């Protein structure tokens, strides 16, 4: 990872716009949303043209919420993003290059063709690589935070995201309860996008408001407007700041709508038109652009320039990665062990 937020960049966002760094955080967040959107459009195109195998899972409509978490994290923090967090990943320091290498299975990428798409990370840099089993990453983030506590590191935050469907798992509940018991500095963001794949919320949970779960865990709950970048920055910024300063676990719940299918193979026909046309269905990128232009924190010319720059980088990177070597079965180690079965020179004993 090459970028990563510096401590200055990750200061708490202040809605009044007067706080130091507020304007810069919003600008960086918006630019990262734009980057994620453009990159994901390329991923979809590569999938449709048969270059990406398996699946492509996009975060369209969820970029504001995702980026608001990533942009508030620092180097040294722990981040376990989930399926629709391209924007948050880029804000945390993931790159267009690593994303494309993972989706295209390049042997030069962090996952080296051994895992793909959204299952990428660099754990040694605090960037956990999600497994598909929902809820499982909450406790791994807790574990990394415990390790930092053992070492006496302070001012650290761990963060993870999940959809409302993932909160139905036992793993999620165990992780949340454990975080609460240990009073860990963790921020868990729930993107309530109304459908778990195709299953609507009334078949997923029965409580009137998911936010009341925070009370059940004995932790702080906060609500964000999921497609409103300014609101997400403020609410999540406050949650991250609270966790960082000893306020314990923070649960953030945000309503929004995913503006694509579960994956690119899914036409999302189960989402009713009325919902798409409601305020929930408004595109967070459009709303963010309007909000920043209104505040004169950005100009149309800048947006055009950013767009052109990112499109160029995405195209050039995709071209480069498509030429990179695929993993070679003859060169593959074919062992899942780190040390077992290897001698000190790293060669197989048997």
């Amino acid at each position, binding site marked *: 990872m090459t970028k990563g937020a510096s401590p200055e960049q990750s200061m708490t966002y202040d809605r009044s716009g007067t706080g130091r760094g507020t304007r810069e955080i919003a600008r960086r967040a918006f630019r990262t949303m734009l980057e994620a959107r453009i990159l994901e459009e390329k991923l979809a195109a590569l999938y449709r043209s048969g270059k990406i195998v398996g699946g492509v899972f996009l975060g369209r409509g969820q970029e504001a919420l995702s980026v608001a978490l990533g942009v508030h994290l620092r180097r040294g923090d722990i981040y376990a993003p989930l399926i629709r967090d391209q924007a948050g990943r880029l804000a945390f320091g993931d790159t267009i290059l690593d994303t494309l290498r993972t989706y295209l299975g390049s042997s030069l990428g962090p996952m080296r063709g051994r895992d793909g798409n959204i299952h990428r990370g660099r754990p040694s840099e605090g960037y956990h690589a999600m497994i598909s089993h929902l809820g499982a990453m909450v406790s*791994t983030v*807790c574990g*990394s935070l415990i390790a930092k506590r053992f070492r006496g590191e302070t001012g650290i935050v761990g963060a993870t995201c999940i959809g409302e469907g993932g909160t139905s798992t036992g793993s999620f509940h165990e992780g949340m309860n454990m975080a609460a018991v240990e009073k860990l500095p963790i921020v868990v963001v729930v993107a309530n996008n109304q459908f778990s794949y195709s299953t609507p919320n009334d078949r997923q949970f029965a409580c009137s408001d998911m936010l009341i779960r925070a009370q059940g865990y004995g932790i702080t709950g906060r609500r964000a407007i999921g497609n409103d970048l300014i609101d997400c920055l403020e609410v999540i910024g406050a949650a991250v700041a609270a966790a960082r300063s000893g306020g314990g676990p923070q649960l953030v719940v945000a309503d929004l709508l995913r503006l694509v299918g579960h994956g690119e193979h899914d036409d999302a026909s189960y989402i009713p038109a009325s919902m798409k046309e409601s305020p929930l269905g408004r595109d967070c990128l459009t709303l963010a652009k309007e909000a920043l232009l209104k505040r004169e924190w950005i100009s149309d010319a800048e947006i055009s320039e950013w767009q052109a720059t990112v499109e160029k980088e995405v195209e050039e990177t995709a071209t480069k990665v498509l030429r990179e070597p695929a993993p070679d079965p003859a060169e593959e180690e074919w062992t899942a*062990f780190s040390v*077992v079965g290897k001698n000190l020179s790293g060669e197989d004993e048997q």
Partner: protein
Amino acid sequence: MSITYLEAIRLAQQRALAEDPRVFIYGQDVGAFGGAFKATKNLAAEFPGRVLDSPISEDAMVGLAIGAAIEGMRPIVEMQFADFSTCGFNQIVNQAATLHYRTGISCPIVVRLPSGGTPGGGPFHSQSMEALYAHYPGIVVMTPATVEDAYTMLLEAIALDDPVVFCEHKFLYYHLKADKLPEEALPFGKARITRPGRDATVVAYSAMLHEALAAAEELSGDGYDIEVVDLRTVKPIDTDTILASVARTGRLLVVSEAWPWGGVAAEVIARVAAEGFGLLDAPPQRLNARETPVPYHPALWGTHRPTASSVVNSLRQLLEL
């Protein structure tokens, strides 16, 4: 001085905590209470803040260990009973076991499983889970059968960069005793020829080693010389030692307290059949627990699991083939 198998496990953890600041213990009731079996007795007081009670959350317990291992710690998770590790199964087999393969980061966690049957244990406090975890690439599965191995192998497990499922047998906790603990151990992954012989090989591990040894002793009265091999580590498996033994004896019986389907006994036989078919003078045999849940009543339990008596019967049949 007399040290039990259980005390050896406690002492290994005590030594690891004393020598390595990266080690901590996490599990239900392991703190001031000292664990359901007292495998962590007094450790919380001796190492403040490093022996932590967990909620009843096997999934999150293992997840926490994995996250801590990523950050360089050496966590030991105590499952209260091996049976409950199925509640943490996903984290063990999908997160810990895949971490190094996927990301290149090793996952040095130890999950301690108080395993196997005891009288009155019943279906949910008696299971032997080794085959389940050995099935998944990336997990080391240890099954110590002696006090000395319980001590040295647990230290080895903690020092290892790969995730280890450590199957310690509850029936051996109090029954086995040793005068002193060793400083040296067999190399990692090596099986031990516990009793040399020439007429047949019995491959066993964990509590079944002792049933096999008792059976061999009984048959020695009839003039049979039975070789007993202790696998020690189920995965990786020491096929070389097994084949060398079968080459000497020509006959193989594998004894396991676990169920037969897809088990360690089946794996040993598959390897010998595939790699040492010509060494065999008779079809290889296995003796497992019966195919029911582990029964509660001692009369049923004693028949459900292999015993010295049933090993003797199996061996007599094998020797006559």
